[in-house]
């Protein structure tokens, strides 16, 4: 609080919080101090939601780095198949095979392992835990006006289950048979038969254990998020006064809670098939000329169970990014978000639809074509709420007094990416077009842009925007802009050409195209994509340096509300202690998007409605 410069506005806010807020007797008991008394309880086994958020973020960044590095290695193989990779031998050891002439090539098995691990890590560890884990933890208690989560203890467990899952996954990278290599979706029989592939043995066992622990983490977190949003909102914080971030995190947690247990069921049946000889997924199979003792299993059953999680999972990834972007765009264009209720209803619509479209991942897996029709229709209907959201983001920006900084640029970049990737989704949602497009680079381009890059953009927008709340300092703006432009241009340079590869029928997950006459002439394009990927990765390194440099050396935040935002998290002191508000809990008097109203730049949520507003019948 020492460096907390009080402006006129913040002083007025504090008076309002003292007068209108209510005393929950939080500070009469010194549990907060007791629980944050030493290094271990403050930084490691912390039960404070803000610290847990940072733990999720930094762990997520570590995994982002590892997963990104993996993609670089397999992109090197795809872009420069002729070049020697012998220089990677010190790092990858036996996975680089060096011939007599000293030319090193990537082992095909390891290529598949890299692709599998890249997918698993990015989808689950970075874009689920790193994104939703970070911002749900940071923002839910702060923005709804709560001291902490409903159960800080379970919240701590949520992080440590994630950590444990990470340790096991990391260990699987180092087993001698290699990590699992059957694709991040882990379809049987590759995942169910330990002898199917070198990675299907110990690597797959570790993969299953790790992801099961991960689901525990997601469920513990989700139970907390839902309970906190529904039960711990401060006085006056009605559901229709929640910032869109909270709506997004809340619905994300609901989706996760309904879909992740299904993944556990699928995994459990898989474990029985692997270890105890049941035939849930395995039918009559021959390996190495020998008939195995399985009969009558259905590999498509696994696909149904997996995608019943798998499709909602992509919304678990994208909804938090959408919520963050709605908030960031509104704050930095100094305008209320356009169509608040439409935004909420479209989140709800997307969440509902996400559960009845899973078979569009299985059009070519032998699903009845008549059943496919239903899934096509529901899939295409998702375009409606998505388009509503895109329209509203653009309308929020339109005519706004936009501050172009790293946060808002990434927010705008998100909208761009979401449109580009969303449009190709309409192609792929049609089962007829999917006959040509399935399992090609068109699919790779589509989902990387719409849920990979877009979700990262949402995450970066959130990091740049709430960094001052997390660390009391700002990230370097110049480096932030280099990061933005490098990522935007680079990501399009990587994934735009992939659409053409896909339309030409180039299949995904292939180790090499040398022996296919039809795909040989794409060598130049593959080279271009790889160079772009290296550039994008380099720019992310700049971000990581900027992040850690700014923790200690960044420009200090002098006022507590640097963006002039109206939500509650900016009414807490710069150095936010445990319990978030030093005195009373503020009560909420109005909705979170009063920007540019009555000639004022913004009106905080703690400020009561004026006589004028009451007369005008404002009720949100």
């Amino acid at each position, binding site marked *: 609080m020492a460096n907390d410069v009080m402006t006129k506005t913040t002083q007025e806010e504090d008076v309002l919080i003292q007068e209108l807020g209510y005393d929950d*007797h939080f500070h009469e008991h010194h549990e907060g101090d007791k629980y944050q008394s030493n290094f271990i309880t403050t930084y490691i086994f912390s039960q404070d939601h803000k610290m847990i958020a940072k733990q999720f973020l930094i762990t997520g960044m570590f995994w982002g780095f590892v997963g990104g590095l993996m993609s670089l290695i397999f992109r090197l193989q795809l872009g420069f198949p002729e070049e020697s990779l012998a220089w990677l031998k010190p790092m990858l050891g036996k996975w680089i095979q060096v011939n007599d002439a000293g030319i090193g090539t990537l082992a095909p098995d390891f290529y598949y392992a890299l692709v599998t691990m890249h997918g698993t890590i990015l989808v689950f560890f970075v874009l689920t835990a790193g994104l939703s884990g970070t911002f749900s933890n940071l923002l839910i208690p702060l923005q709804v006006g709560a001291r902490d989560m409903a159960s800080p*203890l379970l919240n701590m467990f949520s992080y440590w289950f994630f950590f444990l899952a990470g340790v096991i996954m990391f260990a699987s990278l180092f087993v001698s048979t290699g990590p699992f290599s059957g694709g991040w979706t882990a379809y049987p029989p590759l995942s169910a038969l330990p002898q199917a592939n070198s990675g299907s043995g110990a690597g797959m066992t570790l993969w299953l254990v790790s992801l099961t622990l991960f689901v525990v983490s997601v469920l513990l977190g989700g139970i907390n998020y839902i309970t*906190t949003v529904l*039960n711990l909102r401060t006085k006056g914080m009605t559901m229709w006064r929640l910032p869109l971030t909270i709506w997004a995190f809340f619905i994300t947690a609901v989706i996760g809670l309904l879909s992740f247990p299904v993944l556990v069921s*699928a995994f459990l*049946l898989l474990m029985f098939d692997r270890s105890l000889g*049941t035939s*849930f997924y395995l039918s009559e199979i021959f390996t190495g000329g020998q008939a195995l003792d399985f009969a009558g299993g259905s590999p498509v059953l696994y696909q149904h169970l997996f995608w019943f999680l798998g499709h909602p999972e992509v919304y678990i990834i994208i909804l938090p990014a959408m919520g963050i972007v709605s908030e960031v765009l509104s704050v930095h264009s100094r305008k209320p978000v356009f169509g608040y209720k439409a935004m909420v209803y479209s989140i709800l619509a997307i969440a509902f639809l996400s559960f009845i479209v899973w078979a569009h991942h299985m059009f070519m897996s032998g699903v009845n074509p008549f059943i496919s029709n239903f899934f096509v229709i529901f899939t295409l209907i998702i375009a409606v709420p998505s388009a509503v959201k895109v329209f509203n983001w653009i309308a929020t920006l339109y005519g706004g007094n936009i501050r172009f900084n790293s946060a808002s640029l990434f927010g705008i970049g998100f909208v761009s990416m979401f449109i580009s990737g969303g449009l190709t989704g309409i192609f792929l949602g049609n089962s007829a077009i999917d006959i040509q497009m399935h399992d090609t680079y068109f699919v790779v381009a589509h989902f990387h842009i719409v849920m990979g890059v877009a979700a990262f953009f949402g995450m970066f927008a959130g990091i740049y925007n709430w960094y001052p709340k997390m660390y009391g300092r700002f990230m370097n703006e110049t480096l932030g802009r280099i990061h933005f432009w490098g990522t935007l241009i680079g990501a399009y340079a990587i994934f735009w050409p992939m659409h053409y590869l896909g339309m030409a029928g180039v299949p995904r997950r292939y180790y090499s195209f040398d022996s296919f006459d039809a795909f040989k002439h794409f060598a130049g394009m593959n080279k271009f994509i790889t160079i772009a990927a290296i550039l994008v990765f380099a720019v992310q390194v700049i971000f990581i340096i900027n992040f850690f440099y700014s923790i200690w050396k960044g420009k200090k935040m002098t006022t507590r509300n640097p963006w002039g935002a109206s939500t509650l998290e900016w009414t807490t002191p710069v150095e936010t202690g445990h319990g978030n508000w030093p005195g009373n809990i503020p009560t909420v008097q109005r909705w979170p998007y009063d920007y540019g109203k009555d000639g004022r730049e913004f009106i905080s949520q703690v400020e009561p409605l004026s006589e004028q507003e009451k007369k005008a019948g404002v009720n949100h």
Partner: protein
Amino acid sequence: MERAVARDYSRSRIHPKKFALWVACGSILMMFAAFTSAYVVRQAQGNWLEFELPNVFFVSTAVILLSSLSIHLAYRAFKGGNERLYKGLLVLTFILGIAFLILQYQGWLAMSHIGIELTTNPSGSFIYVISGVHAAHILGGLAALIIALIHAFALKYQVTPARKLRLEMTMTYWHFVDFLWIYLLIFFITQS
């Protein structure tokens, strides 16, 4: 801190922890919904060995129903100030819970006896796995009951809001795993 956060909830109708338990029950239910839908999908694909569910599963159902009744009465006795009845019924619930697990095991033995082993056919495998995972959730309930027993016998009898909440949550979960088994049994009967 736990207490600090969960102190003044006079404003909300349901205690957040109780609500969190309900949410957790919802996610457990989804897990079993996945198992039973997998069962239906797999059954529709043929190669499905039909057999009659051993009768011992009906006995175990009666036992778990009784245990639900006894924990309910224990909770009422606790609130009503009848210390001896509360302690006795809690012990009874625990014994009935253990008995349920033993009976489920007998059920598996009976299945194995008529030639339905774990790997014989998916129709049997599903029943082993589903009832096995359910038994694991009963174990969780028994762990909660052990804690409730420790509280009942080690602490001085006192009706405080915190202890009431704790017992009520144990009871809610126990009712839930009971209901879950009834659902599974009805599902098995109607499907085969």
